[in-house]
């Protein structure tokens, strides 16, 4: 087992043509940086839009429980459609432009399930006694939501944001297939041109971006919940 691992390592190291550093130097500002910017743009906008939709829907679902199952059902269905297919379906809708737009729509659709689920779970985790106490203190429902419930639900909500963000960064790489831009463009171009340098550049940067986002949000999660160990599923 370790013998073949050594052979593989040897093979990899003996392939200097895997990374063409000159290409990287020459095309850094022209190809690599725009791809990176584009990826951040896609991811950020998608997470933002998803939150704008998911938070209110989550709050409503937590309150009016009957709404929750159909909401989970729809967002669950969206989640199980393979991304490549969802992109194609979105493009075929008249009025949807080719480019980042269908990618953003799809990314938003994919992250709704986890964000809504975690919003509801977060709100559910607020002890009823705390809410009663707040009501006893004379706070209105609205004030309770914003000053008590949401703050206490925040750690779980942020956990959901973390998962959604990482998922979005990952699926955004596939968006390049429909001309959506981002680091996936480097990957696909590299595959098409049989040019490993581009593949590696795109793949490594996408991975680094995802891991960085994950760690930053994990830090935020821990900051918001210093008293409890963070449980992962």
């Amino acid at each position: 087992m370790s013998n073949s691992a050594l052979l593989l390592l040897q093979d990899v190291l003996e392939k200097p043509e895997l990374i063409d550093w000159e290409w990287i130097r020459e095309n850094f500002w022209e190809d690599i940086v725009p791809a990176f910017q584009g990826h951040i743009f896609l991811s950020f906008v998608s997470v933002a839009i998803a939150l704008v939709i998911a938070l209110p829907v989550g709050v409503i679902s937590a309150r009016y429980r009957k709404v929750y199952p159909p909401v989970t059902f729809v967002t669950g269905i969206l989640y199980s459609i393979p991304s490549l297919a969802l992109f194609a379906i979105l493009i075929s809708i008249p009025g949807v432009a080719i480019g980042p737009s269908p990618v953003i729509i799809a990314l938003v659709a994919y992250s709704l399930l986890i964000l809504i689920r975690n919003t509801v779970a977060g709100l559910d985790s607020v002890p009823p006694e705390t809410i009663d106490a707040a009501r006893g203190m004379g706070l209105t429902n609205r004030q309770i939501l914003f000053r008590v419930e949401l703050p206490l639900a925040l750690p779980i909500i942020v956990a959901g944001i973390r998962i959604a963000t990482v998922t979005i960064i990952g699926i955004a790489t596939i968006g390049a297939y429909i001309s959506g831009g981002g680091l996936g463009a480097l990957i696909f171009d590299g595959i098409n041109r049989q040019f490993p340098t581009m593949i590696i550049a795109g793949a490594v940067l996408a991975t680094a971006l995802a891991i960085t986002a994950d760690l930053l949000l994990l830090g935020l999660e821990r900051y918001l919940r210093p008293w409890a160990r963070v449980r992962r599923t």
Partner: protein
Amino acid sequence: MLSNILEVFARPDFPEKLREHVVLSLVALLVAVAIAMPVALMIRNTRLGAAIAINIGNVGRAVPSLAILALALPLLGIGFASALVALTALAIPPILINASTGLREVNKDVIDAARGMGLSGGQILARIQLPIAAPVIFAGIRTSAVQTVASATLATFIGGGGLGDLIVEGYSERGPEILLAGAIAVAILAIITEVGFGALERAFTPKGLKIAQKRGR
């Protein structure tokens, strides 16, 4: 259009694509379990080991699927085998995280009591730690399985076969039937995986835990 989609399922190459997809997913999952479980077992009693495993798992979980599949290309070449290696790597993190966490979080008091009763380390593992951790472990396997079925769709980009081939083919077609056929097939496969492993999870949850879960403890 429905009949056109069904026609795609009747195509002679469809069963093969389906088989490729299932084999890719299943083998990747099994190998991932074979790698992750022993690691989780080894570190179950050490705090540092568990922390390392869980952190590696978390980082691994964030890695984009396409990135790993694409990296397999210059390193391992095109084809089924490369895709398999990449998918296996992607399948490990959820299992590692859940198995490690699950085994670590078995209540210390319970383990102490068992030790007090004279049970050996192996017996404690088999009779106490594993059964209690089972639901969490299976939840991790379930997550990994569903994720792997979805990621296997991307194997098409490195010549690995699978239902992704159909979806990519559909991109060059006038009508959506081939694309939808591929998409529906993957979605159904994902749902079957989710439901199937969910049932497995319930089957392996010890009765006592099921009752406790019902009571909401």
